[in-house]
């Protein structure tokens, strides 16, 4: 059957109209390697957290403060994780890379890490409960906690620039290890991440 030009046009428009109804694609879910870099929105994501923790871990554990402390005291320093203030424009789960740093410190064997402010509240509740309910042989004493030598604190700052579908994001993470007794800053780590996000105005 040979269609006239006008009939073809009508048929084409009908097909286009139907295409409009088929706009919704079905959702697919697949497992991927946690190390895979996937950027969707351009916001802070797991890759950024990983980049920060890797940089900080390398820098912190190789810095001279660790050796100096060990030489001076003959033991490993004890660190407590403080807070990382999010001064950025995005909601960032700072615990993600803080936990990475804690894990690396503990696994390195050269630093001891004590429970954080929030964690020790729960531990103390348990210890208080033991004073009443635990048997004398298994009872853990109050007031025997190990005091930290250093506190890890920090902040994340962000600068954005945007223009018509183009966006530049700059994140700077600063971590500082502070001697709790003297307030001396023993180590300062810094990681900068810069991203360019382009978004096209049209798609088929």
């Amino acid at each position: 059957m040979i269609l006239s030009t006008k009939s073809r046009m009508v048929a084409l428009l009908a097909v286009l109209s139907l295409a409009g109804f088929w706009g919704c694609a079905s959702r697919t879910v697949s497992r991927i390697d946690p190390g895979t870099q996937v950027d969707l929105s351009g916001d802070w994501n797991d890759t950024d957290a990983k980049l920060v923790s890797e940089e900080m871990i390398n820098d912190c554990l190789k810095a001279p403060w660790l050796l100096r402390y060990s030489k001076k005291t003959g033991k490993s320093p004890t660190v407590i994780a403080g807070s990382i203030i999010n001064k950025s424009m995005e909601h960032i789960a700072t615990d993600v890379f803080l936990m990475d740093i804690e894990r690396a410190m503990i696994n390195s064997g050269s630093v001891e890490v004590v429970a954080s402010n929030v964690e020790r509240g729960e531990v103390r509740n348990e210890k208080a409960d033991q004073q009443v309910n635990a048997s004398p042989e298994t009872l853990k004493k109050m007031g025997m906690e190990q005091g930290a030598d250093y506190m890890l604190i920090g902040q994340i700052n962000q600068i954005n620039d945007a223009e018509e579908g183009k966006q530049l994001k700059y994140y700077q993470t600063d971590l500082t290890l502070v001697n709790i007794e003297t307030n001396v800053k023993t180590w300062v780590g810094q990681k900068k991440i810069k991203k360019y996000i382009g978004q096209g105005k049209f798609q088929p």
Partner: protein
Amino acid sequence: MNPYRVGRSRDYVGARHASPLQPKIQNSKLPLKHLAVIGLAFLFLEGCATFSQNMVPVRDSLIAGDIPKAVADFKKISAGKDDLLHMLQQGYLSQLSGDWLDSNNAFDAAEKRYEELYTVSISNEVFSLLTSDNSRPYRSNEQEMALIPYYRIFNYLQLGKADDAMVEARKANDKHKVDLTQTEKMGERDIRFKAFLNYYTGLLFASRGENNDAIVSLRTAFKLYRLGNTKFSLPVPRWLPADYYDAAIQVGLKDEVRRLSDPYPEIAAMASKNHHNNVILFLESGFVPYREGIDIFLPILKTDDDKEAAKTYYKKYGGDIYAYQARPPKLDQFLRISYPKLTMFPSAVASMKVVLPNGESLSTERGLNLGIETDLQFKQDSGDILLRTFIRTLAKQGTLKSAQDSSKGLGDLMNIFNVATEQADTRSWLLLPERIDLVKASVPAGTASLTVKFLDADGNVVEEKQVPVNPQAHGLQWITVRCFK
């Protein structure tokens, strides 16, 4: 429904408050088969309630003060291509229900979806030119999206996450940047909204001791309110100069402090008094103006405009033009053109008062007039809407002519399709308040609740609410109260 109607379409969402215009074309004698075109078109339309129409029961439940029913009504509405609009309404309803977390999740999803929709789908655009703007996904607008931080900041404060509230504040200020050297170029809507936003974020920063951020926001708010006051009588909030003065002192900007105190000698005393303000109330009332569809139905008659036809008619009727006009007209097609117009949603509330435990009554101040904001946004969008309506009409005429040339049946079908699909885009965030008023108060420690009175133009109480408070000696407690009447 009269097919020759010029008036509000079925998207009319404020039926309780106005009467539609219904001028009629008289003496049209059209064949029944052509009337069937219109009949079929409307039968086709019957099953296609728009998102705005579906939201009417939700809004009515809110007016009746039944938030759980409004939520239940809302759950019956499927999002479809209007998912962004669905998220905005969901976020707002969750906040009204006190589910701060769900509200923030919905607003977060809305912001992400808004960014995705920056990329325009060409197939959707083509499809919308053959049907109506309603077939495009709802993209929202600057004015609606700008209100997300206002609600999210409040949600985070209720969740006890002040740091996250400040993230939202920084995000909002970054998204709605103000160049203080270019304020003369700013439009009215921009000045009104950014003045309010900066005051809101400035208060948050100041209450959290973030003085560097606070001074920037409060300075911007002060300058924009003053500019708005000069240009269109935008009132400057009573405590803003004092807040700004205080922030300048905290940061140590002596020149700025002097520039403020020279024209306002009483500002130091005001700032001192302002330190005792420990509660800020944002009182929301009414509903924003809504978009309703205007339909124009035009029967297009066949014209015999070629010379041969004219000669034939002249031979047959001579100079008796009346004899020619008396002939029954032949219908070529029905043309339906739909476009939205903005309609105010009347509110009974004219003013508000907050009564303290000692009987002192505080009047509120205008924070943000969303009625005006919506009107200005609509005017901004109108050019685009009219252009799209014009192009769509041309495109539909093109498809109709092609179909008519192919066969008469196909032409009739295309006419039915064109009339049925032509609908004004009336989608908007209907649940927003018409205005947000604010008042700062010094509430004695131990006070359990405050009385908020929403008053009509004669000072009669429209609604009275007891609002629980927990005032602290330091810091600012943030409260929002909504009146739907």
